[in-house]
């Protein structure tokens, strides 16, 4: 039976409940939330004077009411040591989400740590160290002393290249400006660590180098542009599932035609209509379905390309647009360089592109017209172009990214209302770090270093590569082997004999062992192999700042205590730095010890002031106090000043036509098609019958780190789904809910069959990063020239493992697409 909470009433927040601002700590959209908290022994009443909503709660509330919260938005948590009721409810006054909550974010209340309701009992509460064949609690002092001592000894032996680091680089939970600054200061200022990688990719690099190298930052527009655009082009993204409330609150109104008045008011000198939309995606998605429902079939163009052929399509679009004379010559002349060379290098006819992409030349010409054909009266069409992991984790990332930005520049659509060429984003952002220039390009492929036995100590900050890396089988096996060597060594001596313990660990490291330190909020798959596990606080348990996909920066004010002895990552960094300083001093290296000064932060606000305030572009205008006053609407980065105590931000980047290059001119890029570029991909496609496309589902956030303890989510997806065409199912002899094995030369994994009539034959789609079936097992080690992984172009075989197990028998397997009766 479908999971039900059997809840039939909830406590009423009293009129004097404490109300603070928060931002959803999950996806890039960064929806605003209001946090209500009040003493455990109190309740409000139904009378408007006695409850926090000022509403008559004795009656049924209207649709979309702000005066209600779902059971998943409620919990009992600790605030300064006392139990309080907590409600985390979407904010109706936030311009981002206007009261909408998604199936992920609107469960933040329930996914909070509670000793009373028992939610998130999985949270890490104490520092743990490996001793006597298990991870057992110890003090912060003991744990950090061990980490510092081993780290220092490894660096003495191998130099700083012996220290491998995996770290978040984003905003929201497991990130934020406070924590990216702290980790960045430790590894890039106190040390110059090169062998560092990011949570979702095996090196320290931008996912959008291509765009940045052209002088175009990847988050250059604002969410309002989706309401103003004439045409939206969506590439390799599924916004209804992965950026839910951006799509619902900003795209859908334009597709429905309900932003016409706004368009007329803001852009009065041109004709307006509701938006058209183009999707470039090998598969049909709920986003495409919803667009067809709202805009009608004649205003939605789905281009179901062959997987990995986006680049050829983009070059053909640029060619058609140029040949039709639809380019923005004035913009190109004033603000760009390299147009003619680009066009010459990239020239691709629709017929050539049709052969590569599997589309028809007519589809390509139609798309070009929707993007660039002038409106009535010769007015330029406003086209917003967005992309995400279909492109970012797809074939030939760098060139494909550039080929797309070429289109946006050629049509003058960057820095302009209703335009932009932006990534949609996964996490929120929150990056402020000292320069990483010492890492160089391409950055070291850290996974390969680990596999090859390099390095001696690994610091992991909120990453679980066992679920979220490519070539995961080989990586996992190497990791286990190397960390086991250290475990045997630890067990060969009494734990409390620190000198012998360190010697034993160092001996194991010299034999190829790896000492693993894992900082996280919950136990992870990789952390199970660590020797030290450190408990971190998450958003809401500390003050945390981030920005969303339109660079909207907000402060989530601390609303509850972290579990046990967990600390904000930035303060863990501070303590670790102090321990490293002591260790180097004890070792008689005061000049190195001195590099670890400057971490005397007492609070996360101290880290913020040291980092963002002093180092971010416009950071000098930003303080916690001003952010608190700005609430869930915050301001859009970069800050350019302060007026009447309010931070003044920047709505769109490049609206003055000055781009991020030395001369201010954006650069067109030559980016000709070169097939499947990553090593081994062409052969894999030729050898295996099934495309194992992969990505997200709206139910779950990131690597399921909190959702793995959610009955609601695990009931829906006990195993990762594999969307597959029913005719393929018949051929394989499998039914809905059956467990299948997916295998190729890289490894094998498992998934649950989800019949999907809209899936093309031999093109499956698997839920990514799931603990009960890791898609990364079957992804090859092939990367692009800048070490960007290529998860999407994966091919494999499929065979039946088992009939539908009990956990899948009560599930629904109906189409995910909304239907009109």
């Amino acid at each position, binding site marked *: 039976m479908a999971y039900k909470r059997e809840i*039939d009433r909830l406590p009423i927040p009293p009129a004097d409940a404490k109300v603070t601002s928060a931002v959803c700590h999950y996806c890039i959209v960064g929806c605003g939330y209001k946090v209500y908290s009040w003493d455990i022994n109190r309740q409000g009443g139904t009378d408007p004077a006695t409850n926090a909503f000022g509403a008559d709660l004795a009656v049924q509330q209207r649709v979309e009411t702000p005066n209600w919260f779902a059971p998943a938005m409620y919990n009992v948590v600790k605030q300064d040591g006392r139990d309080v009721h907590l409600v985390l409810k979407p904010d109706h006054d936030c311009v981002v989400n206007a009261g909408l909550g998604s199936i992920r974010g609107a469960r933040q209340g329930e996914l909070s740590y509670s000793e009373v309701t028992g939610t998130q009992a999985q949270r890490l509460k104490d520092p743990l160290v490996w001793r006597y064949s298990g991870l057992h609690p110890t003090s912060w002092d003991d744990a950090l002393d061990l980490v510092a001592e081993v780290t220092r000894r490894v660096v003495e032996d191998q130099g700083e290249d012996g220290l491998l680091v995996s770290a978040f680089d984003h905003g929201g939970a497991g990130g934020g400006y406070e924590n990216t600054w702290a980790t960045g200061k430790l590894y890039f200022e106190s040390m110059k660590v090169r062998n560092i990688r990011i949570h979702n990719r095996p090196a320290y690099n931008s996912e959008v180098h291509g765009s940045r190298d052209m002088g175009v930052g990847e988050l250059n527009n604002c969410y309002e542009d989706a309401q103003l655009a004439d045409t939206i082009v969506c590439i390799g993204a599924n916004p209804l599932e992965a950026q839910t409330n951006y799509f619902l609150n900003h795209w859908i109104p334009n597709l429905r035609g309900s932003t016409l008045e706004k368009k007329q008011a803001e852009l009065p000198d041109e004709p307006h209509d509701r938006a058209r939309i183009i999707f470039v995606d090998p598969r049909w998605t709920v986003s495409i379905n919803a667009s067809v429902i709202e805009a009608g079939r004649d205003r939605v163009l789905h281009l179901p390309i062959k997987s990995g052929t986006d680049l050829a399509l983009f070059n053909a679009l640029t060619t058609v647009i140029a040949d039709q004379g639809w380019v923005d010559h004035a913009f190109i002349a004033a603000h760009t360089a390299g147009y003619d060379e680009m066009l010459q290098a990239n020239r691709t006819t629709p017929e050539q592109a049709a052969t590569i992409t599997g589309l028809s030349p007519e589809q390509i010409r139609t798309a070009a017209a929707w993007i660039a054909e002038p409106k009535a009266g010769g007015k330029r069409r406003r086209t917003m172009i967005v992309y995400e992991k279909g492109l970012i984790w797809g074939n030939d990332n760098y060139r494909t990214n550039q080929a797309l930005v070429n289109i946006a520049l050629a049509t003058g659509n960057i820095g302009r209302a209703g335009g932009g060429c932006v990534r949609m984003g996964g996490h929120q952002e929150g990056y402020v770090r000292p320069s990483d220039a010492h890492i160089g390009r391409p950055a070291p492929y850290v996974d390969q270093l680990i596999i090859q036995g390099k390095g001696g100590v690994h610091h992991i900050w909120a990453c679980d590569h066992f679920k979220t890396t490519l070539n995961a089988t080989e990586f996992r096996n190497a990791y286990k082997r190397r960390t086991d060597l250290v475990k045997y060594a630890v067990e060969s001596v009494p734990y409390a004999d620190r000198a012998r313990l360190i010697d034993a660990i160092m001996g194991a490291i010299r034999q190829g062992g790896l000492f693993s330190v894992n900082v996280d909020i919950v136990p992870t798959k990789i952390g199970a192999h660590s020797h030290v596990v450190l408990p971190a606080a998450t958003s809401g348990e500390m003050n945390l700042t981030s920005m969303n996909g339109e660079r909207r920066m907000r402060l989530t004010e601390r609303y509850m205590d972290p579990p046990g002895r967990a600390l904000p990552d930035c303060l863990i960094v501070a303590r670790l730095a102090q321990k490293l300083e002591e260790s180097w001093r004890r070792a008689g290296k005061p000049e190195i010890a001195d590099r670890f000064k400057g971490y005397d932060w007492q609070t996360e606000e101290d880290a913020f002031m040291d980092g963002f305030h002093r180092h971010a572009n416009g950071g000098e205008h930003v303080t916690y106090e001003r952010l608190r006053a700005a609430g869930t609407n915050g301001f859009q980065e970069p800050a350019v000043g302060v007026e009447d105590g309010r931070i003044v931000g920047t709505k769109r980047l490049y609206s003055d036509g000055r781009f991020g290059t030395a001369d201010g001119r954006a650069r067109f890029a030559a980016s000709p098609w070169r097939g499947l570029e990553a090593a081994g991909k062409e052969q894999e496609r030729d050898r295996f019958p099934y495309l194992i496309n992969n990505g997200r589902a709206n139910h779950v956030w990131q690597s399921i780190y909190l959702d793995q303890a959610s009955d609601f989510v695990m009931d829906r997806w006990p195993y990762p789904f594999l969307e597959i065409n029913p005719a393929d199912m018949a051929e394989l002899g499998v039914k809905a809910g059956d467990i299948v094995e997916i295998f190729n030369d890289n490894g094998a994994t498992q998934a649950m069959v989800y019949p999907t009539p809209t899936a093309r034959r031999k093109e499956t789609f698997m839920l990514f990063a799931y603990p009960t079936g890791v898609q990364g097992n079957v992804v090859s080690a092939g990367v692009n020239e800048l070490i960007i992984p290529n998860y999407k172009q994966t091919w494999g075989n499929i065979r039946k493992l088992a009939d539908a197990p009990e956990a899948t028998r009560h599930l629904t397997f109906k189409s995910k697409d909304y239907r*009109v009766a």
Partner: protein
Amino acid sequence: MERECKNLAEVGRRQFLKGSVAVAGAATATVSTQTAAAPRAPGVEYPVVRLANLADLVVDQPLRIRYPDRRSPGALIKLGVPAEGGVGPDGDVVAFSTMCPHQGIPLNYVAADKTLNCFSHYSRFDCEKAGFQIWGHATQNLTQFRLRVDDAGEIFAEGMDDLIFGRLSNVLDV
């Protein structure tokens, strides 16, 4: 009820009325004087409400019902196939709240696949699987009403399995 009316007009504008649960049968819910079957502590006490008679039901034609009071719309549906929580001789009679637990938008019944659908945000719930959210934004599966059928074929609602939208107590404190 102004908002609900406005909303139904919106449904009409988008030509969804045809498929909405407003296929009004003669089902005027009447509040029974019987007390709830099993008092639940510390929750609320549900009224027992007669919804309809089995003879009133036609497969895939939902009756609009109100439970536990007239401000809380639901659908009583004979699915024609046995279903989770189904009652009646064929185990195929089910009832659900039709206020979407996401934002309270009225759900439309789609007979073709026996689902309840939100026209505003596209959430979908499976009537054969206890209101399982197939896809959508709600943080809970759809609230199902617990039903009982007596010897005369009278169908009663006696409780429900989750909080319904727009109230912090399923039984309002009036």
